């Protein structure tokens, strides 16, 4: 897995390509999209958007970014801007579709609606892990799903964008990962890496 070992984080690589795009190298936008789409997809899905809505929300976030390109100053700001835009858009649509306003969306958000067929395709370890992830608070569930697709240096800004207190994950394990790790290590059915 190269995701955790690249010399430059996802946000930095995406930021570099985005700067080139803004300076007139329009072809570089494709690279920005390919680098960050997996995180945006995960953000939308972990916010309770169904697969169709999630795909649409991600597209709208990119269209809005291009329109507001001059407001996004640096690589971490680019990633944060996109994450916040996806999150808000999901929130807006979920509340519209529910015709009610939840008091605190984050804590009401259901785990992604994985079908039994999809769950059956997971390995035993993956299933055990998913069960424990589903048992976490909605904020932790979201954060862990997104950082699983990110690089370590980006955790802090992802965490901030998703509404976790800054510094609660950062370069250290963080509250959410610590909770998941503790649950897994005390579960005999988890084949812990030695």
């Amino acid at each position, binding site marked *: 897995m190269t995701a955790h070992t690249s010399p430059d984080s996802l946000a930095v690589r995406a930021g570099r390509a985005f700067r080139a795009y803004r300076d007139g190298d329009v072809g570089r936008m494709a690279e920005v999209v390919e680098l960050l789409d997996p995180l945006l997809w995960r953000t939308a899905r972990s916010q309770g958007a169904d697969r169709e809505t999630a795909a*649409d929300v991600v597209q709208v976030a990119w269209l809005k970014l291009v329109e507001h390109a001059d407001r996004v100053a640096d690589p971490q700001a680019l990633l944060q801007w996109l994450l916040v835009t996806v999150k808000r858009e999901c929130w807006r649509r979920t509340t519209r579709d529910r015709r009610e306003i939840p008091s605190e969306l984050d804590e009401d958000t259901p785990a992604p609606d994985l079908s039994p067929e999809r769950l059956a395709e997971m390995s035993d370890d*993956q299933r055990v892990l998913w069960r424990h992830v589903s048992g976490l608070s909605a904020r932790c569930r979201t954060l862990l799903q997104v950082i699983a697709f990110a690089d370590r240096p980006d955790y802090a800004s992802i965490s901030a964008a998703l509404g976790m207190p800054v510094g609660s994950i950062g370069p250290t394990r963080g509250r959410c990962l610590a909770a998941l790790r503790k649950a897994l290590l005390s579960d005999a059915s988890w084949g812990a890496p030695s």
Partner: protein
Amino acid sequence: MNASSFGAPLDHVDVAILDTLRSALEVADPMPPDLDERVKFALTVQSLRAEIAELERLPAELAGARSGDYTRVHTVTFTSESVSVVVTITHLDAETSRIDGWVDGPATTAELRERDRSSTAAVDDEGRFAFPSVPRGLVQFVFRSEDADAKPVITPSMEV
């Protein structure tokens, strides 16, 4: 759990947990394989100073919108600040669709952007427009009005 546990640096167990979570989600809830392409296509639209319309699936469509459906006709709506559009897509055969639309708002032309070309249809006095024969695939709509100051309205890309 104590303070030293979550303040600790990540170790190989944490990395393994995150890697397993990532692979689990790649199996169980993968990103649609064409999402990057849909985004890149939508971003190639020329008029960037545009109003962005969002897609709304009609409630009756929710069940039929899953992959593998063989519905011949489906309807989607787009809404933005200044217009709302209802688009009905009819699959004529394996390669071709017909698109009928109705715009509520100031638009006078509807542009259909396909991958390699684009075509324009006039919006009539009642707000109707049609593209009688469209190769099936990824498309995007752009609506313009006669008011030179008005921003065009663009939609996300979608399969027809």
